[in-house]
């Protein structure tokens, strides 16, 4: 085993492999920072190039690309409130809020350092426990996934700011959006009004871009011209002050890394869900939960580490059992087959160095993130120097390109614009947008796993508590609900109701 680790080290620390990783990393940074272009797309574009490579550089290239792309999604999120990837959406209000306060440097620096730490943690844990964890992950059936997704929904209660009722309405709106399209259970179209395009459902990326970025552009266009809230700022050394932040939130950092790694390893739950759950947990246990969503570093640290920590996890069931944890690893399995290596337990026995090489690549990729991320932030940071009158139309243009690119259809642009207007009206009326996004992310997962479980159990609801893991998850979720309800009731009595406030309404 030690010799396999040693072989893996020599394979990865080869000048050619390291160069490939650096180039692939730069590519991932570029793609991830473009709204609408996802880490999955970056990987798919990489596949023809990997045809000509040995297995280790091919895998290392994919690892470097995805790690960078997930981080890079934070950059446009922090600067102009367009999360580059769904995984960045959880904390975009905080990172953008920091920029509005003139602290873009802090937001981006925290994104880099927490991503690096989370990523390194995930890589180390997986390197030592991969086969055991893969076995556990394989025990998850629809019952367990249902509870996991339901627990994710609970997060809405924590992440929404202002009135709980408005947060709930927003969540239900998101869940409604998720029901549009062909129902995968019965194969029947729902709410499509005869439109072929709507049969495919509302794509998440255009919806997300619309609800965050377009609504922001609208708010700027309608708001008073002279009260420009954006503070002129230079993005210089983003690592300034990071040591203090990391020391202050070391507990959250550890928590985010652990949750991210654990969720990442389950096939079907990935970086997105890891980021949302961590953010909610972070807020719940924070000493200053009222600051969340307004430009507070804490959630950024926790969730930023979680989404990078989760990346490595998805590779474990993919390599050990050939079951892809997400769409990226589905492509990886294809690449492995192309190289004549069938994923499966034989990989562990015949080519253990390959598995180690993947985790070492994650380690190296996360270290590479420090210099490459720094350069990328310096480059993109100039966006803040552009006058608003020029930047805002450019953002709208970028949004359109991104919404178009996801499915190569104008329909995506339409979805983006419609949801952008809806989100604008919602925020102006005090409805937080984040729960709606969460509803769109989790809606189909909840519905599908619930229906699957019901078919399997012939409609017996108690089946959700018959399997051990499922029972534990179910009880935890129900306890959390009871707790939230109880807390709300208790809080309501003595105090005056607080005036509802939109999550992004500026403090001043």
């Amino acid at each position, binding site marked *: 085993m030690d010799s396999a680790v040693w072989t893996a080290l020599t394979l990865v620390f080869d000048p050619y492999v390291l160069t490939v990783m650096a180039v692939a990393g730069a590519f991932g940074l570029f793609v991830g920072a473009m709204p609408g272009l996802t880490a999955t797309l970056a990987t798919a574009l990489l596949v023809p190039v990997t045809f000509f490579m040995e297995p280790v550089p091919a895998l290392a290239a994919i690892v470097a690309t995805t790690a960078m792309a997930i981080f890079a999604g934070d950059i446009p999120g922090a600067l102009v409130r367009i999360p580059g990837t769904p995984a960045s959406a959880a904390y975009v209000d905080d990172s953008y809020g920091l920029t509005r306060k003139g602290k873009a440097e802090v937001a981006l620096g925290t994104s880099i350092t927490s991503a690096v730490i989370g990523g390194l943690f995930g890589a180390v844990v997986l390197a030592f426990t991969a086969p055991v964890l893969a076995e556990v992950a394989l025990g*998850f059936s629809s019952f367990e996934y249902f509870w996991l997704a339901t627990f994710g929904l609970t997060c809405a209660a924590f992440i929404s700011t202002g009135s709980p009722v408005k947060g709930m309405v927003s969540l239900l709106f998101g869940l409604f959006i998720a029901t549009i399209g062909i129902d995968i259970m019965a194969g029947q179209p729902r709410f499509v009004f005869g439109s072929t395009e709507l049969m495919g459902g509302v794509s998440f990326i255009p919806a997300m871009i619309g609800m965050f970025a377009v609504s922001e552009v609208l708010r700027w266009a309608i708001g008073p011209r002279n009260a420009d809230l954006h503070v002129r700022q230079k993005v210089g050394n983003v690592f300034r002050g990071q040591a203090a932040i990391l020391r202050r939130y070391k507990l959250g950092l550890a928590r985010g890394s652990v949750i991210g790694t654990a969720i990442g390893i389950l096939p079907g739950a990935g970086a997105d869900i890891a980021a949302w759950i961590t953010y909610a947990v972070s807020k719940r246990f924070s000493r200053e939960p009222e600051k969340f969503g307004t430009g507070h570093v804490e959630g950024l640290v926790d969730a930023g580490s979680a989404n990078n920590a989760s990346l490595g996890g998805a590779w474990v069931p993919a390599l050990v*059992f050939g079951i892809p944890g997400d769409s990226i690893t589905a492509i990886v399995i294809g690449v492995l087959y*192309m190289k004549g290596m069938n994923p499966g337990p034989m990989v562990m026995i015949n080519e253990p160095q390959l598995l180690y090489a993947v985790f070492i690549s994650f380690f190296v990729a996360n270290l590479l993130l420090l210099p490459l991320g720094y350069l990328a932030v310096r480059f993109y940071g100039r966006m803040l120097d552009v006058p608003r009158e020029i930047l805002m139309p450019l953002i709208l243009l970028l949004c359109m390109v991104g919404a178009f690119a996801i499915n190569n259809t104008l329909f995506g642009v339409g979805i983006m614009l419609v949801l952008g207007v809806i989100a604008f009206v919602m925020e102006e009326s005090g409805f937080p947008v984040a729960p709606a996004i969460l509803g769109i992310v989790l809606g189909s997962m909840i519905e*599908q796993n619930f229906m699957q479980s019901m078919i399997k159990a012939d409609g017996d609801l108690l089946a959700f508590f018959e399997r051990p893991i499922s029972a534990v998850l179910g009880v935890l979720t129900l306890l959390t609900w009871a707790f939230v309800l109880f807390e709300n009731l208790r809080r309501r009595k003595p105090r005056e109701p607080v005036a509802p406030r939109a999550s992004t309404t500026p403090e001043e």
Partner: protein
Amino acid sequence: MIRRHAFALLAATAAVAIVGGLAGAAKAAYPERPITLIVPWGAGGGTDATGRILGSLMEADLGVPVNVVNRTGGSGVVGHSAIAEAEPDGYTIGVVTVEIGMMHWAGLTDLTHEDYTPLALYNEDPAGLQVREDAPWSTAQEFLDAVAADPAGTYKASGTGQGGIWHLALAGMLQAAGMEPDRVPWVPSQGAAPGLQDLVAGGVAVVPCSVPEAQSLMEAGKVKSLAVMSAERNPTFPDVPTLKEATGIDWKLGAWRGIAGPKGLPDEVTQKLVPLLEKIHGSDEFRDFMNQRGFGMVWKGPDDYRQFMVESDEALGGVMKGLGLAQ
């Protein structure tokens, strides 16, 4: 005089235009600009993988870029519509999959195979019959006996969406065995991989996806394959008998993929693309790729492919009517 001159001038202009036009057409032989290859399923899946390798091999030969575009959603309706509704100029073609013979029966679209110009069928993957390694049945016959003996609904199956190809394969097998097609209820999933995961996790009893899709779990000792629903055994899995060998039931069904363009592709285009696809199909690169991924290789040119789609459409319609899935 003036009129005559004018006429001559006009004639000369026309002549120049015609000659120029001809010369232009001769120079600009198909293809002169990038070709779009539409894949109606998502990045990372089998259709995407085969579409991308075909695209890159076509690109190398044609000398123009072949852009693979995923148009996903709506159980394949969106992508298949995009191929059929494109301009029939040879610059938009796509991968048409078995679902073209299912979607219209389900009432999702009016599209059928008649809306396409078939070019080549390159892949067919027969359904298998996978159960957990520790399942009490060691042959397909024992499994069928158990299904017949125990009450309906005792065993559940998964591996694709409601009315998806593997669902129809299982239902058709039960029908051919003289049982109700819904005696093993279907648990819809988003594909073979989640279905297999559920099989291992103990959620369902059987997953009738193609055998190569279950390969890594078979090697892991988690899953075993009892039969394959085709005329012959898969050379990669010589120990897995055909359904007919195992049970005497003559039932065959599989997923397939082919390249097609919108209806009415000009001859110039088909005469260029069909020989090219045949050449690619015979190349070592393509063969290695297909074998390594475990995709079944078949070849049918335009006429055979058209006939194949007609037969596939009828077979699928029959099962779907039996299941009450046709509208």
